[in-house]
């Protein structure tokens, strides 16, 4: 009976469930240490997931903007080859609107040396940098501007001392709403504020301007009728063709002094710089992850040293080298998986909070979610490999002598 059948099912065994139990023992008994090493990993993963999520969310916001405003063109006077300033002909708007694919045209005329003041008592040199510009009712539609308070200029108010303020101009003047009738002092006349704009995404210089109608501009400030700029929208597919024909259309006598620009180029540049910035942050996240991995490796090496007698005991109880290695590897993987999940949750939450605060759509790439946990697991596996090999190589009697 003791002889029994030789080498019956001879190897020692450890079921997966038992392995998990044995592998989590060290963590359950040393919670503070375990949570600190989990923290290291989770910081790295949170940084990576957060950066990916936030950049994806803001990028999709920018891409939306690009799609919405990509067909916007500006036309302005450029200086001559001899550096002399030029101006657009008074017929510019009418000519441009006759180009087939052009859907919207708005002209603006900067009125130089006239500034906007909160009251007549403000010293004249305290201009706040708010420049006065004449335009017409087509402005909001062409530039994608929306009105936060009041209304924009219309054919009627364009003839009266009425002004619409850009978002920044309004806040510089300390005007937050129009619940009470509000007037500002412009070039020796009182103007009633009839509207305040939201920030204009694509042409942010509009934010620090104040807008009045052309008729009142001519009447009060002697505006000469030459626009200082045109804003156009065309059928999106024809933007480049339109850009090519605009100079001769707008100024047939001297096309070379007409400059055509795409404001969306600024957005594209912004996308590129954002990408570069993300690369840097991702690099920092990867370094944090690496440090977290080193932390886990460190904790595991210490754990193996401290638990030599446990290793010896388990070998005496029938654990094979492989079982010992598995135990410590599972411990490292558990540490890293907890860190990875915690970090992914933190990174996703950060993305949600950021995107909501920026009024953007929350977008976290799937890759960031799976990749976060995956990267943590890989880190744990690499970090746990050496310590668990060391634990497995320990001879049982050497381990038992350790006390």
């Amino acid at each position, binding site marked *: 009976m003791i002889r*029994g059948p030789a080498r019956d099912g001879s190897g020692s065994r450890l079921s997966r469930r038992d392995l998990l139990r044995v592998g989590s023992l060290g963590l359950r008994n040393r919670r503070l240490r375990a949570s600190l090493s989990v923290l290291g990993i989770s910081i790295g993963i949170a940084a990576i997931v957060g950066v990916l999520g936030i950049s994806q969310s803001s990028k999709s916001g920018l891409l939306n903007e690009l799609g919405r405003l990509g067909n916007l063109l500006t036309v302005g006077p450029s200086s001559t080859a001899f550096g002399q300033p030029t101006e657009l002909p008074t017929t510019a708007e009418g000519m441009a609107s006759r180009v087939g694919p052009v859907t919207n045209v708005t002209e603006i005329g900067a009125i130089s040396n006239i500034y906007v003041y909160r009251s007549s008592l403000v010293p004249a040199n305290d201009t706040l940098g708010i420049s006065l510009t004449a335009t017409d009712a087509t402005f909001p539609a062409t530039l994608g501007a929306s009105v936060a308070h009041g209304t924009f200029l219309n054919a009627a108010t364009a003839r009266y001392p009425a002004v619409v303020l850009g978002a920044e101009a309004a806040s510089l003047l300390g005007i937050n709403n129009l619940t009470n009738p509000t007037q500002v002092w412009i070039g020796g006349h009182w103007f009633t504020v009839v509207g305040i704009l939201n920030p204009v995404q694509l042409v942010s210089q509009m934010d620090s301007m104040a807008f009045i109608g052309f008729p009142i501009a001519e009447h009060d400030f002697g505006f000469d009728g030459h626009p200082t700029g045109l804003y156009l929208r065309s059928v999106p597919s024809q933007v480049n063709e339109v850009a090519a024909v605009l100079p001769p259309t707008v100024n047939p006598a001297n096309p070379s002094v007409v400059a055509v620009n795409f404001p969306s180029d600024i957005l594209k540049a912004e996308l590129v710089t954002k990408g570069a910035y993300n690369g840097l942050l991702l690099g920092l996240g990867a370094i944090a992850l690496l440090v977290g991995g080193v932390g886990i490796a460190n904790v595991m090496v210490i754990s193996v040293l401290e638990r030599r007698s446990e290793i010896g005991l388990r*070998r005496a*109880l*029938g654990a094979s080298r492989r079982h010992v290695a598995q135990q410590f590897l599972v411990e490292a993987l558990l540490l890293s998986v907890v860190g990875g999940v915690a970090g992914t949750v933190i990174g996703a939450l950060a993305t949600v909070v950021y995107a909501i605060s920026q009024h953007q759509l929350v977008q976290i790439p799937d890759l960031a979610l799976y990749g976060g946990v995956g990267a943590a697991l890989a880190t744990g596996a690499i970090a746990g490999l050496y310590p668990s090999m060391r634990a497995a190589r320990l001879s049982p009697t050497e381990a038992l002598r350790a006390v």
Partner: protein
Amino acid sequence: MIVAVPAPVDEAAPPAPVLELIDVVKEYPGDPPVVALGSVSLRIDQGELVAIVGPSGSGKSTLLHVIGTLERPTRGVVRVAGEDTSTMSDTQLSGLRARRLGFVFQQFFLLDGLSVLDNVADGLLYRGGHIAERRRLAEAAIERVGLDHRVDHRPNQLSGGEQQRTAIARALAGRPALVMADEPTGNLDSATGASLLELLRELHREGTTIVLITHDLDVAAAMQRRVEIRDGRIVGDTRTGS
């Protein structure tokens, strides 16, 4: 699962050898090499209670480690429960320890994070099998060593004697062919040590095969068989018919 059922020694049939060492040599590398065991041959039969005695450094622990397959001999044959261990892989040797051998150490080696019950049940961990079954066997072993009122305690809530009883229950739970104890009373006061030795003698009377290392000649004298070792060689092997 094959369980070696301990039975009283049958007078008619010759008792089966639980352990056979044939010309076992254990050397540790060095210059010159340390010869911890020099050609030891030993046979232990089922149901024996063997005391191994000898001065410090004589090779008692080394002998026990070789018997327990924790250490492979440099030369010679070690047979446990009839199986030659020299050709076994690490996994097979580990399986042998999990199924056939039980260890009791001077330092107890209980796991702090586990209750008495789980410490004892972990003695069966590497045999596989369901945890409920392991706990059931563990409970029986705990009851046998008289610790049923302490099953849910942690080791650090136990006295030294209770800790060693827990370790004995762990070695015993799987009914191994051979239980090995290396100075199990070395960390205990003499009264506690005596009651522990009494427990081992009771287990022996119930059929468990036990090898016990001791410094204490009085303890050894009370055993059925004494193997005396000096400088890695067996210099005496005496039996008292009891």
